């Protein structure tokens, strides 16, 4: 049992096979795509593997602390930012292989001409909690199985 983030990018991922931006699709193609994503999430709920799915707006703001008593500094959005995240799906699955399988399926969402987009998704494991019985007792033994 482990959680994985299936990360979708607006920008920054390698080019998809069917790499036509959505603004050049027909209404029906957009509808079919949105339906595919909904069905995918519903299917994961049904299998008991769904944790979360969210989409992000294209424009964001950069923020940083600017010292005691001052409001945070904001900047951007920067059009040149290379890596722009579009959204994610979080799954709770029995194996890494299952996470890869699901990402592959998600990447097959239909795009232009109803054909799979084949877009690149990034699969990132969540950090779990340390096991109660450590698998390996390295370094003076965090414990001693």
């Amino acid at each position, binding site marked *: *049992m482990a*959680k994985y983030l299936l990360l979708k990018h607006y920008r920054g991922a390698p080019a998809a096979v069917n790499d036509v931006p959505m603004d050049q699709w027909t209404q029906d193609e957009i509808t079919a795509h949105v339906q595919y994503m909904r069905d995918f999430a519903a299917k*994961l*709920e*049904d*299998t*008991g*593997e*769904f*944790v*979360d799915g969210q989409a992000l707006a294209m424009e964001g703001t950069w923020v940083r602390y600017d010292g005691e008593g001052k409001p945070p500094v904001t900047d951007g959005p920067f059009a040149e930012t290379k890596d722009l995240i579009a959204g994610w799906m979080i799954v*709770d*699955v*029995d194996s890494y292989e299952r996470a890869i399988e699901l990402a592959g399926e998600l990447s097959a969402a239909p795009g232009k001409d109803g054909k799979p987009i084949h877009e690149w998704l990034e699969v990132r*494991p969540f*950090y*779990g*909690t*340390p*096991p*109660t*019985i450590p*698998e*390996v*007792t*390295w*370094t*003076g*033994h*965090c*414990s*001693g*199985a």
Partner: protein
Amino acid sequence: MDWALLRSLTPSVIGILVRRGADFAAAEDAVQDALVEAVRVWPDDPPRDPKGWLVTAAWRKFLDATRAETARRRREEHVEPEAGPVPDTDDTLQLYFLCAHPSLTPSSAVALTLRAVGGLTTRQIAQAYLVPEATMAQRISRAKKTVGDVRFDQPGDVATVLRVLYLVFNEGYSGDVDLAAEAIRLTRQLAAVIDHPEVAGLLALMLLHHARRAGRTADDGSLVALADQDRAKWDTRLIAEGVEILQNALAKDQLGEFQAQAAIAALHADAQTPEETDWVQIVEWYDELAKLTGSPIVRLNRAVAVAEADGPRAGLKALAELDDSLPRYTAVAAYLHERDGDEQTAARLYVEAAGKAANLAEREYLTRQAARLNRKSPPHR
């Protein structure tokens, strides 16, 4: 009121409903409903016979659900199963087997065991594993369908049950439910209904690790290495209990992997100071464990024990025989190089190991080791 008692009755009450003719899925639902009612009613009106009360309440829930279902289908010929007396037989063990059935995935078996054997609610299980309640409800519902056709009276495999309980204990997620304590409770309950040295071995293993829990993390939640732990924080009562259970199991002379793991844990728990640890015996137990499991992870652990028993060079030699892609191989290599006096190599390997860590606590621990060594002798730039 005694919640542990209430929840410990769950599997045997499910068993009684099944013997009266309810299918497992419906019986399990009915008992969950009855548990919820017990939580509501018992504080003001405690029953004299808790089990009898639960059986009656669950049977009523089952009949209500069956009648609703029957009415919905307009099937008048539907025959209601007859209520009978509460039998003496206890199907608790059968419930463990069913919920750990080999047709289930590990996550499904864990969820079903916690609900049908542990008597936890779906919400509690969902919170424990940090997934939405609807997701956990589906996982449990599918698991119940998967084992729907399994005959209840079939003998099961203890090893599969132990693997599930081990998973519950080991994946110490943080929620309202203390999964480690719950795993211990379920393993105790199992040990009470079956005399099996590996069940005892797993229970001993859990108790011996649980005993050290307070010493394992600092106040800020960071990991504390075994050698640095305040041994006064270890629970001596749990250690004594674990050791006794283990000794009785070992006396049966049917060694298994959980007994061997527990023996190693007992040797650590037995040492008043890190220096008193009997590493030679620990190496011997790792040899036994390697024979039993063939696991490369065991041999990685063994390399550390060899370093403690025979010196870091011997440990590094044992390490060199292993595949360097093993999880935590790099962390072990870092430690052994540090013990061998090569702090620059150790620091570099600690950084590399931190990048490969499977959880945040280990990553921070390894990063701190690298930082500690880098302050002593800054890396070449």
